């Protein structure tokens, strides 16, 4: 990386969004190792393409690359599957330091497992909205999806989440 600290350098523009990129990779891949692979590839791509980046929203741009890399990954399971709640490996808690994992309440783990069990298109939309706090327009940009579809995916994601939470007997 160039040691430049200019306002328009990769370090200044893209690296501040590394946390966001990591989170999206984690939620998409549902596995710490696969997520790190995706993140590595995505960041190298971002570095390669940075010269041609002329947009105004580097976070949506980076998340789009992460998403594209994840979708190109053999490790991405596109299907719907049940993630057992008791299985810690299935929640995105793997790789965390043990203390933080201990502090996380059982309910949080359950909710995380329910999110992880959502189909990938609903999951990514929900994560971009709730955790990355992207606007509808930014989500549409990052996922290259019409805004109407973003809205209905969000709706279905939230509905599935509340209904499965009720089925699990969450308070």
């Amino acid at each position, binding site marked *: 990386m160039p040691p430049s600290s200019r306002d328009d350098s990769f370090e200044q523009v893209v690296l501040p969004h590394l946390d966001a990129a990591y989170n999206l990779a984690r939620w998409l891949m549902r596995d710490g190792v696969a997520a790190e692979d995706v993140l590595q590839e995505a960041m190298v791509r971002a570095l390669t393409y940075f010269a041609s980046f002329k947009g105004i929203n580097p976070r949506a741009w980076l998340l789009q690359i992460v998403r594209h890399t994840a979708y190109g990954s053999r490790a991405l399971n596109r299907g719907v599957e049940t993630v057992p709640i008791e299985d810690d490996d299935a929640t*995105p808690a793997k790789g965390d330091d043990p203390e933080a994992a201990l502090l996380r309440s059982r309910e949080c783990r359950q909710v995380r497992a329910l999110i992880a069990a959502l189909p990938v298109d609903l999951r990514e939309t929900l994560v971009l909205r709730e955790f990355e706090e992207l606007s509808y327009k930014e989500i549409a940009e990052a996922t290259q999806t019409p805004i109407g579809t973003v809205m209905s995916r969000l709706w279905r994601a939230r509905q599935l989440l509340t209904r499965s939470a009720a089925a699990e007997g969450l308070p």
Partner: protein
Amino acid sequence: MSPPKREPMPGCDKVLLVQAELDGELDAAQAAALEAHRAACAICQLAQAELLRARDLLRGETYEPIPDDVRARIMARLRQAEPRTAPTPTRRRLWVFPSISGFGLGAVCAAAISLLILLPQRDDLAGQLVAGHIRALQPGHLEDVVSTDQHTVKPWFDGRLDFAPPVRDFTADGFPLKGGRLDYLDGRPVAALIYQRDKHVIDVFVWPQNGAIAHLARDTAIQGYNVVHWATDGMNFWAVSDLERAQLDEFSALWRKAP
């Protein structure tokens, strides 16, 4: 905010606006109009309760920053990737060498110049195209939409790209269409069309012309893969295949003269 065309919501088409309001996506006038409707709509009231419940469920979730060890590995990987984009030491040494020797200067300069021409190409578009093609040949990577029908493949790209790639079928000429997928090249999403000639797979990468890369466009061969470029209908086309050159030229000629 207009309601989506697909997946109609049960009961009331304003439900997504209720959601948009909770997400802070409505302006004051829209919110006021919605409020008037919601007061009289039991479905929207239920929807709001359900959405608030979802918000409650997610309230305990905290944003997890990237762990330090992962960050460190990513940064190391980025530093490794840097020499591909920055001038390489090899190149600099080559420039020093002739001045030391002062001997066989012409030959050395020629070698240096050819290296200067060759080095950037590793990262250039043709290299990316071949890399994209090879990546796509890995099991399960080739097609996102599997269809030999151009009228299935073409609409599949709608909403996935900000342009509509032309899709043609050349089955009658011995190049049947196999499907399509999205790829990412030159810093933008592109369409990839997959064709077949006997046992050989042909990838056709398509994206709108922007003039910037027209001067780079030249046919080439990398790692045994032929790369052929043409431009029609305001689109860039790059065909990549291990098919022999003459046949790939035949394929591109079909495209160029297609109506």
